[in-house]
């Protein structure tokens, strides 16, 4: 019992860098969601229920545009596919006898940041305690709590930000997307081809297809990437 509490506390302490990152990001999400004229409840639920960074912003954007539900679901599904890889990698470091309920709790809070920090701690300390259940839950608890509080703060602050600036604040979504894309492009020539072909076809097809142009562009970009010869990349470090 003493040990459980100690590990839980250790997880909480180790989550500090994640918490510091989430506060401004979630305030921004609250502001952006309101700027897109979603309701308070919709913005809050996107943070509380989806809790998945970039895909929250994208879902908010698509919902505000009035995109059809199947397209919103399909796009967010594709963006969040990365969690399958994260989950598989994380699972290999979890104890086999962990109860399903506990796995559910861990899975709900397993963001990229929690994954990355917990894996780094394991590597630096070279022990097995890092993936004990209390430690992981301790690490997941503060970021999620801060996510809820900061999103509410963002929602409440939105009334005090003048209307002219709101479209400019929405550029934060694109800055985030660009920040995710640029490191990938720098890693491999194939990725540059994917990026350019997808972006160009999205732009060209939009007058014809509306929001569905993103789906077509996505398929075109991925197909262009698949034409490149198979080459062993260095492990995609920040996604993993």
């Amino acid at each position, binding site marked *: 019992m003493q040990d459980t509490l100690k590990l839980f506390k250790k997880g909480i302490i180790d989550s500090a860098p994640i918490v510091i*990152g989430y506060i*401004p990001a979630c305030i921004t999400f609250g502001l952006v969601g309101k700027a897109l004229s979603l309701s308070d409840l919709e913005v809050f639920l996107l943070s509380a229920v989806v809790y998945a960074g970039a895909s929250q912003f994208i879902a908010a*954007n698509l919902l505000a545009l009035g995109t059809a*539900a199947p397209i919103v679901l399909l796009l967010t599904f*594709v963006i*969040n*596919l990365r969690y399958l890889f*994260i989950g598989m990698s994380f699972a290999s470091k979890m104890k086999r006898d962990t109860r399903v309920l506990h796995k559910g709790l861990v899975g709900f809070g397993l963001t990229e940041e929690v994954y990355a920090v917990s894996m780094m701690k394991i590597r630096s300390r070279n022990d097995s305690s890092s993936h004990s259940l209390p430690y992981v839950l301790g690490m997941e608890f503060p970021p999620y709590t801060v996510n809820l509080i900061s999103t509410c703060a963002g929602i409440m602050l939105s009334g005090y930000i003048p209307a002219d600036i709101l479209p400019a604040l929405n550029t934060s979504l694109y800055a985030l997307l660009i920040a995710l894309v640029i490191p990938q492009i720098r890693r491999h020539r194939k990725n540059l081809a994917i990026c350019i072909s997808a972006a160009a076809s999205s732009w060209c097809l939009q007058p014809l297809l509306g929001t569905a142009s993103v789906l077509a562009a*996505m398929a075109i970009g991925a197909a262009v990437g698949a034409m490149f010869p198979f080459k062993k990349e260095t492990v995609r470090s920040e996604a993993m």
Partner: protein
Amino acid sequence: MTIIVILAIGAMTFLLRFTPLLLVRKNGSAKQKHGFLENLPLAILSAMIIPGIFQVDKESPWVGIAAGAAAIFLLVFVKKIPLFGVITASVAVAVVVALGGGH
């Protein structure tokens, strides 16, 4: 209606995170598939940036372009910058452009 879609997105996201945890194996390392599926995330992100960034402010495409240029500049030339720094700086640039010459 929107609420139902949000709950559905949440359920789907949860399943993506939770299901792999049920498949614990001794040497269950994540093997990635190279090809079409692996390229999808990057393709979708790129397709969402363009042309969306030009339309973020309906009155002037320069707001989005300025924000994008600022983000790219920081990411390419100032490598040791946290994600939040990139976002704040590019939003600040966008606000300046919107309040200044943009409108």
